[in-house]
């Protein structure tokens, strides 16, 4: 990749990403927010985490390789949900997720 093309791609994209990261934090910094805005901001974490989980699990071509292959991440996720409810531990969730995924892949 030529350096000048890389610089255009890198710096333009970085500017956009930096804007999205920085602007809201400064726009809302030190402001007294209305109850509705506070409520809306409070709903972002559950919506974001659910969207990220769904984004990882849902794919239109997920079952192309077979029903079992498509079900592996769903079953492993259900196992992780059980672990988080039981332990609330980030470490155990990650470890159990990997172990479940490997075991299910070997079945």
């Amino acid at each position, binding site marked *: *990749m030529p*350096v000048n093309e*890389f610089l*255009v*791609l*890198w710096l*333009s*994209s*970085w500017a*956009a*990403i*930096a804007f*999205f*990261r*920085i602007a*809201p*934090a*400064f*726009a*809302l*910094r030190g402001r007294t927010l209305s109850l*509705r805005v*506070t*409520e*809306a*901001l409070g*709903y*972002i*974490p*559950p*919506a*974001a*985490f*659910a*969207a*990220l*989980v*769904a*984004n*990882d699990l*849902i*794919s*239109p071509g997920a079952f192309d390789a077979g029903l079992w292959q498509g079900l592996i*991440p769903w079953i*492993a*996720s259900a196992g*992780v*949900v059980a672990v*988080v*409810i039981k332990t609330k*531990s*980030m*470490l155990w*969730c*990650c*470890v159990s*997720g*990997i172990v479940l*995924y*490997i075991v299910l892949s070997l079945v």
Partner: protein
Amino acid sequence: MVLKIIKTVWPVMLTYVAIGAPCGMIMAQTGMEPWMVFALSSTFVTGCGQFMACNLWLAGVPAASIVASVAAISSRFALYSASIAPHLAGASKRQTLAVAATLTEEAYGISLAKLIEGQDWGPRESFALNVILIATWGVSCTMGAVVGAVVDVPTALASFVCTSLFICLLFSQRLSRGDAVAAVLAAASVAVCKFLGWTNVAVPVSVLVGVAAALVCDALAEGRGARDAR
């Protein structure tokens, strides 16, 4: 402080190594030098944005379209930044800039949980956490680009660690009715977006759908409560 943070995030660091290495290999396929891979990885810090940029570049898509696609997929950071802002109320301008500019998804989740807990955690710790994860990601991508095809990392397995982390962050908090509505509708919206082919904007659009649905649900509940009171 650094050791305390590493104790908390080492599973995420291992995930970054496992995902960053193949990401670096793909970046090297576009003809990027290791210094380019390091510069881009340690500033983007978004696996999907980097994978997407490389795939589009290899497909011969013009740079302007790649920048627009990366911007679209990165718009979700605006929501994370807005969400974490109230918890940085006591931070200086410089601290706010440092934390916001280095925000990643995993760091956002961990920092938010810690800031809400409030014990021994502030903007300095959040920034240190971000820097540790960014350094891990940047070095992993660069190592992947250098090592190339020698190492075969199962990316699906590695990325499931992140899925597990997000599941943990979602279910470890006490979910109110509004939270549950936001989560379910956001997940359903992701499914709809993906089947419509709107993969690039699925997450930010779905977060907005989830939040809007939760607010509507609250408004309906308040209206019903007011009617019952009368």
